[in-house]
């Protein structure tokens, strides 16, 4: 009777050790899953934001795509994507994201070789402005930095850099 009880106790003790061994691993897995979920949710939201900015901008007319031109349409598109209001009065959809973290670049199809290249920007110093682009790309050049928080593990901050390219459909 006594030995049986001891054996039972010993088995239940080894179970406790096993559980104690598994628990941190399970805990890390769950914490990692939560962090992965949070990061991929943020990434998807950012990817929707850059896509919104690109598709909004793709249907605007008279956009000045010169670098540093500060075009009002571009500002409005980025503000709309980031805050949901084209004047930027709303709260940002993703905490800490501002419109100046987004950048718009352009690409043009060469009419002869039909390959993708840079647009002609020689008109930028004159009132003429840049060539009408064929594709516009909205990116986060420096990324949106997220810090994964897993207890007892030091992780590097991850810059999220989603990118959206759409054909420019607007007029000059």
């Amino acid at each position, binding site marked *: 009777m006594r030995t049986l*009880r001891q054996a*039972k*106790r010993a*088995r*239940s003790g080894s*179970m406790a050790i*096993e*559980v104690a061994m*598994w628990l941190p691993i*399970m805990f890390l*897995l769950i914490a990692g*899953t939560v962090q*992965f*979920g949070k990061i*991929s*949710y943020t*990434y*998807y939201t950012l*990817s*929707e934001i850059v*896509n919104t900015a*690109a*598709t909004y901008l*793709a*249907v605007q*007319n*008279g956009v*000045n795509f010169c670098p540093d031109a500060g075009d009002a349409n571009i500002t409005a598109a980025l503000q709309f994507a980031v805050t949901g209001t084209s004047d930027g009065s709303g709260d940002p959809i993703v905490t800490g994201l501002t419109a100046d973290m987004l950048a718009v670049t352009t*690409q*043009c*199809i060469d*009419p*002869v070789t*039909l390959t*993708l290249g840079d647009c*002609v920007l*020689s*008109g930028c110093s*004159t*009132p*003429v*402005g*840049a*060539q*009408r682009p064929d*594709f516009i*790309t909205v990116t986060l050049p420096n990324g949106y930095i997220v810090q994964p928080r897993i207890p007892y593990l030091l992780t590097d901050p991850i810059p999220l*850099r*989603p*990118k*959206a*390219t*759409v*054909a420019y*459909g*607007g*007029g*000059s």
Partner: protein
Amino acid sequence: MERHRVSTGRRFTRGVMSIQLAVILVPVVFGFMGFALDLGRMYLIRGELTQAADAAALAAAAQLIGTGTSLDHAGAVATQALTLNKYNFGSLTLGQDSGNLTSTVNDPAYFATVAGATGTDPSGASADGTTARHIQLTVTADAPLLFFSLLSAGASRKTPIAVQVLAGVSAPLCTACGIEPFAIAAKDISDTVNFGLGDPAGDVHYTFYYNCTGTAPTFLPNSGQSAAYTIINRYDAASTTVTEETDQLFRLGAAGLASSTTPNPTGSPVPIGCVGIGDTVEAVWNSPSFAAVPPTCASRLPALALAALCGLYSRFDNQTPPDACTTGVTNYTALSAAYQPDSDITTGQGDLYSAYQGSGRRVITVPVVNALAPNTATPMTVLGFRQFLVQLAADGTFFNPSDPNGRFVATYIGSPMPVKQGYIDDRFGQSCPAPVPSGPGKVVLHR
């Protein structure tokens, strides 16, 4: 004794449960992890694929301009757009394989009608370049599996995700933006499809000439019809970028109506960059320096028409302009660099429109009005928009922008090319007949 047995039993049961739990829980936990991680990533990838496919289909649909080569152009642009939009956290390129992950972009399917694409029209088989108006794109890509791959169902460590989109031309537009400012008069107002301009399939060549008084100028070779045009008033008095008037006209001729926050100088509620069907106050160009009053035929071409024609000429050649353009347009050199010529500047009057291989730069969309105004005070009513292909001269050279009557040859093609921008409804209150019976549309996604 009773208590002791119970407690022993409980302890015994707890130990067995732990073993069972450990055996059962591992796959269950991996299953849950899979739902959290892998399913989440599958949704992310589906979203990224949808964005890429939408961008590609919209880009490709804009290339469907009713020519034999339009399907090649659409396919090439779709591939370019898909290559630029990556998936799986922006790491993998569509159409390329990476490790065990494959992605395939099916050859796009082209349809003449939406009903044909959705399968509700049994006769709506896939269309060729001259009839295609809609493009259906199917993209399939593998999503990697991490936790599901530890279960037998996910042993291949990936699962395919497919996305299908349909884009094409919309219903005929009520208000078209970015079209060309050369207004012509309808030859037959009762013909709501072609305005008496003839059958688009017949490739009727028109001699366009700047509206003038007296005996109409002679036809250019190869054309049996003529159409007088005038330049509608889109003078942007408050423009902060292109302020000089000949520069503005060059830009309108080179790339169509430019948008601006300046109100329409005609007083119409339609924006300055657009023209609306049913707009009754459209007027000829009228600014402090120029008034587009028709001159006597065969006299000197007015400077405003010359500047607009030089813009039109830049669709053929922006490198070696005629001397009249370099002197007639104030900032010619800077302006012309921003407008690329058409990729096809050789298809001439002897060829059908379906043989045209260009990108549509040579296609102009013009407003058709009830009658051309004889002076700046007479309003014109816009009836619709129709498209013409600007032609080479009969001898294969480019047209002459400094022709005394501003003549050039253009072929009537109906309205096969989607315009850049526009509105289907009469939101600017210009009493547009809805639905518009015929005319160009714009590119939309069909959902």
